[in-house]
């Protein structure tokens, strides 16, 4: 059978026929005060993608400035504010909420056959807290910006005269948005599973979101107190991080990374969950090693709390601390590596459809692997001394955060787009966009490994001329990547108006969200569905009349 085709440009499309969650009610109030997890998910999607645009434009500005040593388009202070903006917006407004809030909110209750999350009002409050936090952060930018880097290291952040308090107060509020989302997901998964769906019958995305939620609930409060301490230091002169008043600036780093390392697992675990779904469904194969993947998600969440010191190997912490953190860091690497092998094994003897979602899923395997392998260079003490605080680290975390989490986000976006919008998009343009993103991404960031290993430090406005060739190649890559993203935005938005109506099950998945129309009705399901093995596709047959998959028994009855 062929891959499912998307809308052809120019062919008028019939709107989805039934009443669904999008048409259920109208008006600003029906969205702003909605308790429907699907609408909240859509609002988060718009909000986080707008943040991605803002952060992305800041990145393009940074890369453009770095085309030449010395001044290209802005001065040093503006540059410092620009990379701070890029980091803070991308991390706090886009990647951390990203998959859980935008995709998870939509899909999680559907996968559970439930009508909503456990606490819909709390869910709405999470969204508005995000908006409030974003207002503070963006307001700080408009008011002149912040130049501390997204990590806000003391004493620089306590003594610089840019708008630090407004920004970190915004991040503080965003933290609560994250905590409440995590709390909601934990309770929903514990209490709202359908009859027959034991823990080991859940789709792996739910294991991933559950593990992520555990981290959100346990780690984010520590960020909260860290930011409060920073505000107290700046506003009240408390002196807890000020050596002149008996404080310790490195203590800040411990507090900050105690949250921010688990935070990167908040970013990558949902991504891995999405990849498990996408690869299995588009290869028409049961996932390999289900139990391992599920349990390793929880293990990674737990172990992720123990390795924060690997960001601080040259900060002056004791040699003993360095050794322990290095050893634990390697232990966290193993489960992730095994997941990659499991996903590869899932492809074996499959029937691989190269839909756009699958293209991103396969891309993930390549880029995440590179990111993970370069973590070995950084976890090892002797090499980390040379590589830390250089572009090698910048390349590493972009490979895992972007090549991992963002690529998976794109995979999930394309995978669930028909379910969320009721439209199919143009697959050919989708694959072109994926190719542009892949080529552009690798060009941008692979060169940065070499920049770093040759000694170019990070957060540098000016640099020695010998590094320029790498920067030029990297910047050109970023423009190619941007083109891929703009193309993606174009065909996705276009599909909203002209896309072919989506069938209930375009890709042939068996998790419960594919057992309800696209888009789903307001109440999700007409009847609470029975839980089955989410990775068993043997009974699903492609039906070219609808362009989707139907259960074999139904199909035969129709024939």
């Amino acid at each position, binding site marked *: 059978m062929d891959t499912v085709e998307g809308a052809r440009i120019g062919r008028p499309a019939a709107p989805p026929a039934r009443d669904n969650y999008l048409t259920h009610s109208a008006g600003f109030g029906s969205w702003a005060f909605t308790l429907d997890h699907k609408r909240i998910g859509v609002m988060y999607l718009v909000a986080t993608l707008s943040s991605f645009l803002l952060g992305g434009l800041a990145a393009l500005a940074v890369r453009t400035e770095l085309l030449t040593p010395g001044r290209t388009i802005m001065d040093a202070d503006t540059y410092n504010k620009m990379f701070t903006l890029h980091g803070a917006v991308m991390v706090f407004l886009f990647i951390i909420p990203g998959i859980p809030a935008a995709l998870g909110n939509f899909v999680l209750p559907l996968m559970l056959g439930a009508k909503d999350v456990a606490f819909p009002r709390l869910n709405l409050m999470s969204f508005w807290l995000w908006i409030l936090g974003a207002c503070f952060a963006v307001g700080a930018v408009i008011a002149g910006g912040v130049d501390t880097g997204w990590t806000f290291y003391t004493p620089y952040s306590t003594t610089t005269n840019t708008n630090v308090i407004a920004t970190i107060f915004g991040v503080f509020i965003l933290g609560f948005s994250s905590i409440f989302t995590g709390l909601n997901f934990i309770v929903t998964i514990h209490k709202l599973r359908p009859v027959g769906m034991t823990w080991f019958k859940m789709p792996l995305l739910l294991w991933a979101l559950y593990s992520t939620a555990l981290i959100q609930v346990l780690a984010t409060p520590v960020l909260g107190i860290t930011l409060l301490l920073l505000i107290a230091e700046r506003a009240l002169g408390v002196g807890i991080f000020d050596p002149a008043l008996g404080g310790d600036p490195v203590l800040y780093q411990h507090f900050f990374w105690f949250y921010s390392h688990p935070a990167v697992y908040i970013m990558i675990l949902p991504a891995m969950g999405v990849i498990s779904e996408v690869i299995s469904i588009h290869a028409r194969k049961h996932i390999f090693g289900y139990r391992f993947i599920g349990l390793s998600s929880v293990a990674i969440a737990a172990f992720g709390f123990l390795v924060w010191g690997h960001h601080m190997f040259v900060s002056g912490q004791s040699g003993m601390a360095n050794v322990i953190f290095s050893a634990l860091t*390697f232990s966290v690497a193993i489960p992730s590596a095994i997941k990659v092998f499991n996903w590869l094994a899932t492809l074996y003897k*499959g029937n691989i459809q190269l839909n756009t979602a699958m293209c991103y899923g396969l891309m993930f395997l390549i880029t995440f692997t590179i990111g993970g392998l370069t973590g070995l*260079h950084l976890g090892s003490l002797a090499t980390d001394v040379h590589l830390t605080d250089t572009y090698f680290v910048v390349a590493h975390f972009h490979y895992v955060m972007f090549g991992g989490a963002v690529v998976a986000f794109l995979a999930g976006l394309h995978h669930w787009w028909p379910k969320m919008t009721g439209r199919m998009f143009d697959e050919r343009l989708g694959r072109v966009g994926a190719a542009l993103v892949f080529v552009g991404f690798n060009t941008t960031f692979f060169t940065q490994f070499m920049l770093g290993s040759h000694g170019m430090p990070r957060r540098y406005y000016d640099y020695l001329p010998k590094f320029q060739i790498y920067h030029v190649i990297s910047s050109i890559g970023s423009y190619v990547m941007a083109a891929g993203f703009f193309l993606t935005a174009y065909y996705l938005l276009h599909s909203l108006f002209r896309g072919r109506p989506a069938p209930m099950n375009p890709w042939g998945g068996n998790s419960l969200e594919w057992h309800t129309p696209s888009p789903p009705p307001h109440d999700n399901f007409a009847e609470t569905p029975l839980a089955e093995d989410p990775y068993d596709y043997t009974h699903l047959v492609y039906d070219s009349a609808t362009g989707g998959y139907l259960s074999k028994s139904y199909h035969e009855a129709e024939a």
Partner: protein
Amino acid sequence: MLIDGIRSLTASIGGIDSGGFWLPRQGSTVAPRVDGLFMAITWISIFFFVLITVALMYFVWKYRARPGHEAEPSETHNRTLEVTWTVIPLLIVIWIFWEGFTGALDMSTPPQNAYEVQVLGQKWKWLFTYPNGVVDENLHVPPGTPVRLVETSQDVIHSLFVPEFRIKRDAVPGRYETQWFQADVPGEYQIFCAEYCGTQHSTMLAKVIVHRSAPEFERWLADAANFIDKLPPEKLWEGGEKLYAQRGCKQCHSLDGTAGIGPSFKGIWGHQQSLRDGSSVLVDENYVRESILNPQAKVVAGFEPVMPTFQGRLKDKEITALIEYLKHLQ
């Protein structure tokens, strides 16, 4: 600006430096070991990356969806395979960890007879203080000698990074951090600041200058110690200006009239100054000399008696240079 950009671009295409594809030249005794581990990890990474990518591409080609092709059921669990691909990576990372750990042990233990230089990071320049009191903006060392750096910062966190030596250590205010190296090959090596510290973070550069021989280094050191002696009388005030910036006067005494921890130097020469005990004094050579060597004797009104003494830290000629500088500030 564009022309400059293109010019520097074409100059850089020739090659980054005399190092290899990944790493710069090896300037210290630990560099070969670090590089060996880096390359080992890199080759292991390349091996697994190729393995995964080739398998990926092969599966995507062989099992691609096409008319008549179906997925074949296969096991979703294979203990032998899973144990193998757990144990082998585990053994490999244990080895990498061990090599990294033992390498770092060597890198953090300076030999007994190391030559010690104090390093001060400040926004936005490095200052190196040698055992004989010389303060310089670059790090001069003799070849083939272990050098121990004792770092601290005056304001925010900086980080002393010498890529060609493969060393890096944060300079933290309020404490001292140490790192060491031994450079056997004479030449100049780049120092960067590797911890973001504000506007001029990227221009906070310095050099390690490894002299051709120990005697040559000693000669430089002696000259530097006596740089004041070399200055002609009419240029003595420039020596004073340099000392003002390097020896710590700048932190408390401004030049523009603003009161800091200590009174500003602007316009004080030759004027009367009122003191804490109510008396007043003329700012002349004697007063300045006394204030430098015995600062508690006469403290200016409105300021606390917190100035440290420079007895033993400034030579007579240096004090004279400072006096000339104060005169020059009129």
